[in-house]
């Protein structure tokens, strides 16, 4: 057996253009397998763009988006033309700012990705029940929704919806989970619950989380990376990063002089 690779995401020298507008400038970022890395920076600094480059969802905008450089997930390049995006997105899941469960039942939401990735095989109800229960237990949602599996998921509370959005990624066994400000639509109590869950999930999954909230980055991440105007300014272990930032821009941002 090959040793598990230490890096889950390896971004090197990545530049990205939306048409004529360059959103990322020679960005480097290494994310260790099983770790939680927070991406912080003021609005428009390119952190969401970088996140979306990792599962190439930026490209649905068409030829208009151009990426150069190299991105590897588990030592495999993902930028080639021969990459099957469906497989990439199965291994690299994404959680959005606003919870976006599908307007289907809770059960069908959890099984959605599972079903589209094995469409030709026969479904087995017991197996599916087990998958649903495991996924929902993993996100600490099972006890709350086990009697409502047939209800439409858009009727759940926002916290439950966001947990469900994480749960539906799990049945296809992703390696990386990208989170784009996953708590910004939630109230403080739900935010705390979600942060607890994120902490609970790391180790099994590599998590890259974009956040506006520096306190959240401190609470929930092991490493923090700071971006400004499309460039990676600084990246380090979270405690060090906030205690003793190396760059002046980082220090200014952390102290709230801008952003």
């Amino acid at each position, binding site marked *: 057996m090959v040793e598990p690779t230490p890096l889950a995401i390896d971004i090197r020298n990545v530049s990205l253009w939306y048409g004529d507008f360059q959103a990322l400038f020679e960005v480097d970022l290494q994310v260790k397998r099983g770790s939680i890395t927070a991406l912080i920076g003021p609005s428009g600094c390119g952190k969401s763009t970088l996140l979306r480059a990792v599962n190439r*969802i930026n490209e649905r905008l068409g030829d208009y988006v151009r990426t150069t450089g190299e991105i590897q997930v588990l030592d495999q390049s993902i930028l080639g033309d021969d990459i099957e995006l469906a497989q990439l997105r*199965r291994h690299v899941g994404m959680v959005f700012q606003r919870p976006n469960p599908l307007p289907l039942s809770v059960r069908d939401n959890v099984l959605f990705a599972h079903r589209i990735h094995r469409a030709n095989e026969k479904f087995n109800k017991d197996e599916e029940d087990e998958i649903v229960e495991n996924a929902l237990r993993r996100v600490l949602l099972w006890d709350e929704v086990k009697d409502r599996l047939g209800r439409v998921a858009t009727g759940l509370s926002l916290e439950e919806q966001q947990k469900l959005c994480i749960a539906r990624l799990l049945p296809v066994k992703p390696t990386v989970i990208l989170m784009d400000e996953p708590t910004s639509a939630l109230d403080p109590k739900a935010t705390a619950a979600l942060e607890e869950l994120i902490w609970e999930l790391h180790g099994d999954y590599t998590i890259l989380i974009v956040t506006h909230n520096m306190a959240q980055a401190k609470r929930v991440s092991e490493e923090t990376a700071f971006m400004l105007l499309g460039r990676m300014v600084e990246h380090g272990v979270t405690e060090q990063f906030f205690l003793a930032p190396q760059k002046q821009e980082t220090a200014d941002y952390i102290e709230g002089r801008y952003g």
Partner: protein
Amino acid sequence: MNHSDAGQAMEPLMFSATNLNAHNRRLQWLFRVLFGLMTLILVIPVGVILTVLVVRGGPAISMEFLFSHPSDGMTAGGIFPALIGTMWLVAVALIASVPVGVAAAVYLSEYAPDNWLTRGINLAIINLAGVPSIVHALFGLGAFVIFAGFGTSILAASLTLAVMTLPVVIVATRESLQAVPLAFREACWNMGATRWQTIRTVVLPNAISGILTGVILEVSRTAGETAPIMFTGAAFFFPFLPLSVFDQTMAMSMHLFVISTAVPGVPDELKYGTALTLITLVLFMNAISITFRSYLRGKKKW
């Protein structure tokens, strides 16, 4: 002195109306009444048409009127062949246009890139909707009756109607597809679903109420049109029920036109009765559409 007087007078009146306020209020009242009257003018014709039809055509409506053939050179009898003919025309037109229209709308909404070709297609659809129906009639005569060799038949007439009403289906479908939030599509794409998987499992099921509304609107439009079927399939007088799509047929709208303008000595009651039946049919379809739409909307949650 004037100055200080004004100053003292202003103080206690800080929150009361000035002349400008009063002027603005009068102006606002004037426009409100003006726009209200315009709305009223809009509704009057509908009320008058319905009242006249019910009062003058109502007595003609009976089971016998609905279910018997015209007789005595169309000056007596009922409208049964025309009623059945209209149903044939509508049904065949729907079969021809709904699959094409819905598929085209799905393409335009979900697949088409935003380029000159797509914009051209959208422009063509808008223009198709603007073509006068008599031009459609001549097109249908040339394309379906003569070139395709269908002769004057239900098929030729229905295809003409289908071409004419395609924009209705396309626009209604496209709008209801675009009303499905982008977030659902993003969720699917991010789990590795293809566009088609996304459309089939999430987009179409949530757009179905809007699509059906479009279809029913098309039905009411198709049922009422006269010009497109005049040269292509509707007969002046054809006292048999059509047996296949290659037969000619009578139709409600055409029948109304004929007995009102071409046949002398038709009692008014008969004309009004025919008109009332036609409009009832159309309003009934619209009512179904509205009920259905609000029912499905009530079930949606997001």
